[in-house]
């Protein structure tokens, strides 16, 4: 198998994986293209037929949606499919420096497959974390603030920042299998996104919209190459995406674009 290096270049190649129920693929492709990537939607079935094709890309993105209806649990059925059909290819992809991003349902898939927070070594049926039903027991769509941890991942800015991003999910409550997993994530600086209030401080509902432990909204694997988050950066890309743009004025771009730009830049130079 060729390494993901072959997907690099001025416009790094990105595969946006889709299947039945994926529904944020088009806007995710748009955000990636705005960030300078060459993004392509590929059905998981086609990739599973030729797992080595993953090596043609520099970045793999699992977009939001309700894959297979989120039946059983959000992202579970696709996670089983990835493990069974693309597990080895995924491990190799990350080992060769490939970047992986999972947003919302994509994050749920990565966690259920074990790729987050443990990385390729943890791919398997014994996940160390989960995204459980929101404490409210309801799907909720709202804008939140997240503090972004600077550094530590090619996806993230160099310095800590606070971004407004929308969440839209019913199962986003990040919990781990025992406190040790949580402590390790904190110790190793792998909590990439944390729900905060507009002043940047952690708070209860609705600042933390789902009851996540330690207000966690997104994490990386030990290498930092694999990132998953519940909020939707691809929905804060255009000047008019921010919910208060009619008060703040029209900006050049939304904060979410920075994430895609960082990832694409890393793939370009890496």
């Amino acid at each position: 198998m060729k390494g993901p290096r072959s997907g690099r270049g001025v416009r790094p190649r990105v595969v946006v994986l889709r299947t039945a129920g994926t529904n944020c693929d088009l806007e995710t492709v748009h955000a990636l293209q705005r960030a300078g990537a060459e993004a392509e939607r590929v059905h998981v079935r086609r990739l599973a037929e030729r797992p080595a094709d993953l090596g043609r890309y520099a970045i793999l993105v699992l977009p939001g949606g309700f894959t297979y209806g989120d039946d059983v649990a959000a992202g579970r059925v696709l996670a089983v499919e990835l493990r069974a059909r693309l597990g080895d290819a995924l491990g190799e992809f990350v080992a060769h420096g490939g970047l992986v991003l999972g947003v919302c349902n994509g994050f749920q898939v990565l966690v259920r497959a074990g790729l987050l927070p443990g990385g390729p070594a943890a791919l398997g049926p014994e996940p160390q974390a989960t995204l459980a039903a929101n404490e409210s027991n309801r799907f909720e769509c709202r804008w939140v603030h997240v503090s972004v941890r600077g550094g530590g991942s090619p996806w993230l800015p160099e310095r800590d920042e606070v971004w407004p991003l929308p969440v839209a999910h019913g199962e986003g409550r990040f919990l781990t299998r025992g406190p040790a997993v949580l402590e390790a994530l904190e110790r190793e600086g792998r909590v990439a996104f944390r729900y905060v209030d507009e002043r940047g401080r952690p708070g209860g509902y609705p600042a933390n919209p789902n009851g996540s432990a330690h207000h966690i909204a997104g994490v990386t694997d030990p290498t930092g190459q694999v990132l998953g988050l519940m909020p939707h950066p691809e929905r804060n890309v255009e000047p008019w995406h921010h919910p208060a743009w009619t008060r703040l004025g029209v900006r050049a771009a939304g904060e979410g674009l920075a994430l895609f730009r960082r990832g694409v830049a890393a793939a370009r130079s890496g």
Partner: protein
Amino acid sequence: MSEVPRAEAPPTVHRVEVVYRDEIPDPRGRAAATLLTEAGLRGLECVRTARLYVLEGASDPDRIARELLVDPVVERHAVDAPCLPEKGPQTRVLTVVRRPGVMDPASASVRRGVHDLGERVEAVRTAWRYYLMGELDDAAERLAIRVLANATVEEVLVGPARVPGSLGQRLPPGRSAARVSLNDLEEDALLGLARGRGLSLDLEEMRAVQQHFLRLGREPTDVELETIAQTWSEHCKHKTFAAPIRYTGPEGRREVVDGIFRTFIVAATRAIAAPWCVSVFEDNAGVVAFDGPWCLSFKVETHNHPSALEPYGGAGTGLGGVIRDTLGTGLGARPIASTDVFCLGPPDLPALEVPPGVLHPRRVLRGVVAGVRDYGNRMGIPTVNGALVFDRRYAANPLVYCGSVGLVPRDRVAKEARSGDLVVAVGGRTGRDGIHGATFSSAALDESSETLSSGAVQIGDPITEKRLADAVLAARDRGLHRSITDCGAGGFSSAVGEMARGLGAEVDLDQAPLKYPGLGPAEVWISEAQERMVLAVPPAALEGLRALCAEEDVEVAVLGRFTDSGRLVLSWHGETVGDLDLAFLHEGMPRPERVARWDAPRRASTGTGEGRTPRPRRPSGEVLLALLSGWDTCSREWVVRQYDHEVQGAAAVRPLVGPWEGPSDAAVLAPLAGSRRGVAIACGLAPRYGDLDPYRMAACSIDEAVRNAVAVGADPARIAILDNFAWGDPSDPATLGALVRAAQACHDVAVGLGTPFISGKDSLNNVYRHEGRATAIPGTLLVSALGVLEDVTRSITMDLKGPGHRLHAVGLTRDEVGGSAWGALEGLEGGEAPAVDAGRARAIYAAVHQAMGQGLVLACHDASEGGLGVALAEMALAGEAGLEVDLGRLPVDGDLDDARRLWSESASRLLLEAAPEAAGALEACLAGLPHADIGATTASGRLVVRGTSGGEVLEAPLEALREAWRTPLGRALEGGSP
């Protein structure tokens, strides 16, 4: 017919039960406990829930459980054993399982996961178990069964022993085609036949059918009879809207209306002759030009009767159905937004006042919101606009409107099946679901509807529809089909019958893929199983379509072909079971004349200037808080948050705006990546005015929808509208007279505003009969508006932007408190409903749009329900900005007291926030129109209103207004999903 096949030795059945770990709170259990307590269950201590998977022929149930079904971080499981103690004085166990034949979407996903694990399973069924803990007697158990399950689609197994066993579908086998003896029947027998078969045809129609077959010299088959009944149903043919009507109007004026639809709706669109209308009244949705090669489509449907019986499934499949209308517009439009409007009984309706056999409005509301949520969110289509209207008369006949907006390339709007094209079914399989939906939805409800019509109610499967959508849009882009339509009411019979119009078709009904064996040809033909569409495919394109659908995991079945015979020929395993003349099918329906009459109700005065002493009234501050917290005005946040209104990344103006999240007038989307062209989506409805005058009701509905679109920045010269009537029994001349009068207003106001109708639909017979008494809904017209914005970054939101700005009122306030929210609050009878001066409204909207284009407008909001007072409060609380207003400066007609200035609901009024230095330019835009600077925004954190005498008539801190407005609905409905 063959029986359901059964294996000699049934495969082993295993049960996997999954619960939250004991230390993890069970949110679903907590929600169930809230519902049960609210329903009056006493002695309940707690509820725990378990998901139950019944696996038939599973190779390794424990591994399947561990690696697929259980989340080890928060859950635990047991195989063939309960997870929690089932027995004991303090525990009652209820297992809720879907009835045979009702869709269980999770089943297919579990099978896929099992397969990916390398394991085997033959069949999967899922259920929920509720462990109720506490001192509960049998009566409590019976109550719990009613609350936790809907008998229409679910059954409840009580106690530990009763668990679903074999998965064999316990369905009666289908009848094969049969001749029906029709030709010798007399009047009573004809009607008896129609009723017995649930055909919803009246005597005259049955006679026309009889005449037709007498001429042919043969009896019809059941398939033929069903086809005619489906095609001629009110739902499909809109008989009332097409019928000639002898109408007696006010002052006894008589006229003959040659069809409401043609005379008022189509005529208005023709008169306006907007060059940007691309396809109107022809296709599954109306189509207008949008941006370069792109067009927009819009369609709104009702799904009232199914939603009354099973709100979750009814609303979900209602949305699913209208989304398929979008997919079936032109050669396929991409759904980009959904709308939903619910008209329901008030959430606090006392249980004793809920009519027999009817679900409580709270349960209906929770169910319909969850239905729209699950279908729309899973499809990935943002639900961006809607409304809630509450009235006791909707309690037995709730209205559920769902709308869908699509994007379609201009060169994919035209469609035409050709002789020789294949009739191809794509999407879900056909089952016994929804048999007789079209005829059922055309009849009235009564207390027995719940048990009799369960076949007409279904649960949707949005992921099947999402796959179907992905496949259809790809097929459109590759040019693989020449025509497409969705299977809605009437199923294949309506879809194929419609596409074959002017051509002919031969259909092999046995080629349709079935969910389970045992269906007869008539059932296949009229089944309303969801998530199916019919394509006309040139034979050369079939392989391409098959390959594409295989990739998207969508089933394809060739049912037959289109011909040029003018006949619809149906066969079943080689035998002809139907042979109908398409001309008779589509044009043979009798068009009897109807009688309609409208008498103006006697008006009572509401007090001003006519010598009557008004009763002592509440102070304005108190009125404002009561209106803001009233069901018709209070925040819809509880609903809005459950819908993904951000998916597809196109949102520019959302349902809630401003730092304190006030009610937006309309939604704005930028649906094309890389383009700033925007689409505004709005609605208007005002059923309360209809009691005074249906003409004004309809006029205000249109005016409100258009005004809402203008308020966010839509170009008033580029607004298309949709009419969706929901009415009572049209055989009652007064009810039909009110409909005629409402339709007249549709014509006059649409022409006056220059906003063409592009699509519409009607739902009649919204009547509930009980013990000889009939309750009808108030005649309701939903108007939906679709507007275009040159540039979404010029959109305006309704939240005040900050202190130091001026507030301008545009439009005239008159003594029009009839049917107003204030009138209802104060118990005032009669009065004038707001009248619309369409010419002036048009001028106002053009002028306001011009001012917006010049960047003069900082915020804009319409004044409608609750009048100026509520509009002021909403703008202030949304923007967290103080406001000081002088009622003496308000442009009014005549001598109006302060209360009327505040609460009158006169039409066509907008409030604008503008910088002080914009006054001159704004004046230039608004010259000649009623308008005035009525106040200023402040940093005081208060809303202050001065009356005509100069004194304060209203003064309230914003926090109080916000609290009153924000909380009522959530508080009434908190408790989670049903």
